[in-house]
């Protein structure tokens, strides 16, 4: 090993011997984690430390005196050769290159990435080169792993099924993923740079701001309200649960927030569509139910029409005979008017029941529901032999329901009860309104009919299931759907003696203070 020159930067303190210095240099070179080589001006290896031995797979004895170019694979070998000629042989030494990444060649012929920094010793005619070489194999692997992880995170973000946005501390959108773009009906890029608070509808702005603030402050996770509405191209974006979290630096400073939410627009649309379909079905159901009552209704309207026509014709005959006193005519005209009003009232009653409409709830007394339906069936000749008994014990309990739809259900239950009893035999149908507890009110329709066979049981509530020859199998399925949509229940029990009782349980309204509408 040759003694290095004084240009290494170490200072030789006064009184220290060159020998001391030598020993210290030797120790540093031996202990260094990086390979340290000294190359003489002919390009031969002069110093080859243990780290270099490990790195290149040569013993120092093998390397020393050999050309340094053996440590470089083609094509670096030529470049190194040129470099050495220019800077050492040509004596142009002084330039100290920045560290550069090249490849090394091990004794076993394998190549590996290295970072080489060089310096020149002795700027005279025979300068020498000191090279410090770091093996990059491991750091390359780390970097690759990091890059891989980055790509993973990137893919997770980009392909997350939930709309996801990263947001800067000031509320600007940094990035948006594809799902977010779809949710907002634009490209993800267009969302970048938007102020997140501008994307939400005005009435929900404060809520979102508060959520982001609490996330930044490290408070427990904020969950959005039941539904938040954002603005988007061509309409409104309905958002369900929102979830936000803060990304912090090592020291805990919030760097950005990640906001993720559930797009419920479609679900809400389907919900609305379902409600509309249910309303339509209810309407069709009413048409069907009224169809069953058609004979009775036509009869009810025909009676006054018949009377009107006969009165009018009688007046004509009286006039023709010259036998029409003004008193008689006046009296008859009044009778005509009365009959016309009577027909009108029947139609009005029907129209209220049949009008195609959206579900519309109001606060009313349970007894009102029952009485209205009882009135409707009283015109049906088929009920003439039926003893319809109303026991309106809890009639005054208020409920918040859709009157027409609930009456439709009751009407259905009454018609079913009628069908279950052999018509000519007659019998009793009892409608009871009771209140089993504070929470609910119960309307029970009890018949003395043939009963529901146990093997059929709950199937009566299935769509398209019917035991009636002309039944569509719609009534009870629809009835249950209507009742459940209004927070109620519909079920039946077998009577101890004979027949069946259908029970319609509805939540009792607590405060009789105007109509409320909870979806």
């Amino acid at each position, binding site marked *: 090993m040759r003694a290095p020159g004084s240009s290494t930067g170490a200072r030789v303190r006064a009184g220290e011997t060159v020998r001391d210095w030598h020993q210290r240099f030797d120790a540093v070179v031996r202990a260094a984690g990086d390979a340290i080589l000294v190359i003489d001006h002919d390009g031969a290896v002069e110093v080859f430390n243990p780290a270099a031995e490990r790195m290149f797979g040569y013993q120092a004895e093998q390397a020393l005196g050999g050309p340094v170019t053996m440590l470089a694979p083609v094509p670096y070998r030529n470049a190194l050769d040129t470099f050495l000629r220019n800077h050492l042989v040509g004596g142009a030494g002084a330039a100290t290159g920045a560290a550069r990444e090249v490849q090394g060649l091990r004794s076993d012929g394998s190549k590996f990435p290295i970072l080489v920094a060089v310096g020149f010793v002795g700027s005279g005619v025979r300068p020498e080169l000191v090279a410090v070489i770091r093996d990059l194999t491991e750091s390359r692997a780390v970097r690759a792993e990091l890059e891989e992880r980055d790509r993973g995170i990137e893919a997770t973000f980009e392909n997350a099924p939930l709309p996801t946005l990263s947001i800067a501390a000031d509320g600007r959108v940094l990035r948006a993923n594809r799902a977010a773009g779809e949710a907002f009906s634009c490209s993800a890029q267009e969302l970048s740079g938007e102020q997140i608070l501008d994307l939400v509808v005005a009435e929900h702005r404060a809520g979102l701001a508060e959520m982001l603030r609490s996330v930044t402050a490290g408070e427990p996770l904020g969950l959005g309200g039941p539904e938040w509405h954002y603005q988007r191209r061509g309409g409104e974006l309905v958002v369900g649960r929102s979830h936000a979290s803060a990304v912090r630096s090592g020291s805990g400073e919030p760097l950005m927030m990640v906001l993720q939410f559930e797009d419920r627009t479609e679900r809400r649309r389907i919900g609305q569509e379902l409600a509309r379909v249910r309303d339509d079905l209810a309407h069709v159901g009413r048409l069907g139910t009224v169809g069953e009552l058609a004979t009775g209704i036509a*009869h009810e309207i025909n009676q006054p029409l018949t009377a*009107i*026509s*006969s*009165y009018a*014709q009688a007046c004509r005959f009286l006039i023709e005979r010259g036998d029409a006193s003004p008193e008689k005519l006046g009296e*008859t005209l009044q009778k005509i008017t009365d009959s016309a009003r009577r027909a009108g009232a029947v139609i009005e009653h029907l129209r209220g029941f049949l009008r195609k409409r959206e579900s519309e709830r109001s606060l009313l007394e349970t007894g009102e529901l029952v009485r209205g339906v009882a009135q409707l069936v009283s015109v049906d000749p088929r009920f003439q032999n039926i003893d319809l008994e109303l026991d309106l014990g809890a009639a005054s309990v208020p409920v918040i329901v859709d009157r027409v739809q609930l009456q439709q259900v009751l009407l259905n239950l009454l018609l079913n009860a009628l069908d279950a009893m052999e018509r000519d035999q007659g019998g009793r149908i009892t409608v009871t309104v009771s209140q089993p507890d504070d929470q609910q009110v119960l309307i029970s329709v009890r018949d003395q009919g043939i009963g529901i066979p146990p093997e059929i049981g709950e199937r009566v509530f299935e769509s398209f299931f019917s035991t009636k020859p002309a039944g569509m199998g719609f009534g009870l399925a629809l009835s249950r759907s209507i009742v459940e949509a209004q927070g109620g229940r519909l079920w039946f029990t077998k009577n101890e003696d004979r027949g069946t009782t259908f029970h319609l349980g509805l939540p009792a309204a607590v405060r009789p203070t105007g109509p409320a509408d909870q979806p």
Partner: protein
Amino acid sequence: MNRPQSAGKPADRDTGATVFVVDDDDAVRDSLCMLLESVGLRYRSYPSAAEFLLAYKPDHAGCLVLDIRMPGMSGIELQERLNEIGAILPVIFITGHGDVPLAVKAMRAGAVDFLQKPYNEQELLDRIHRALQGDGDRRRELLERDLIVRRHGKLTPREREVFDLIVQGKPNKVVASDLGVSQRTVEIHRSRVMEKMEATSFAHLMNMAMLLQEGS
């Protein structure tokens, strides 16, 4: 509108026929009565089948205008009851919508007509007139047959034998040989039969024989 039955003017004096109206609907009943009154028909009206049955006697002539659907005893049931008691009153049913099957049943049970509400008044009146006419004819026919039956009852057993044989168109000679009597005896019986039956001609006697056969 008043429920108690109301008597109409005795306008159809010739026959004394009455239109009986049974309908539970006050307005329909009242307007129908006024219509009948306006054309001068005698009528009586009842709000239920039971009330009509209480008041009606089989010899009351006329026709019945009957609502098919009524609480309590229906029109069909009333018709059956009338058939049971042998009342010959013709029945015109007035039906509500969709009662055609019931009307068919009523026609099978002998109703003369049925009309659907709201009916054409003139048509109803025409049918009422036709029914009244029919009832009058039928009653006269019955009266006449009753008379013939009574005359026939006055014949002696031998005269009845002669009557039965001559209305078959058998000449006196054949009758005489059938009965094993002289032709002269047959001639005497024959003239007694003509006399007792008050027959103006042999053809008249034949007619009476046919009426008797119908009735038996």
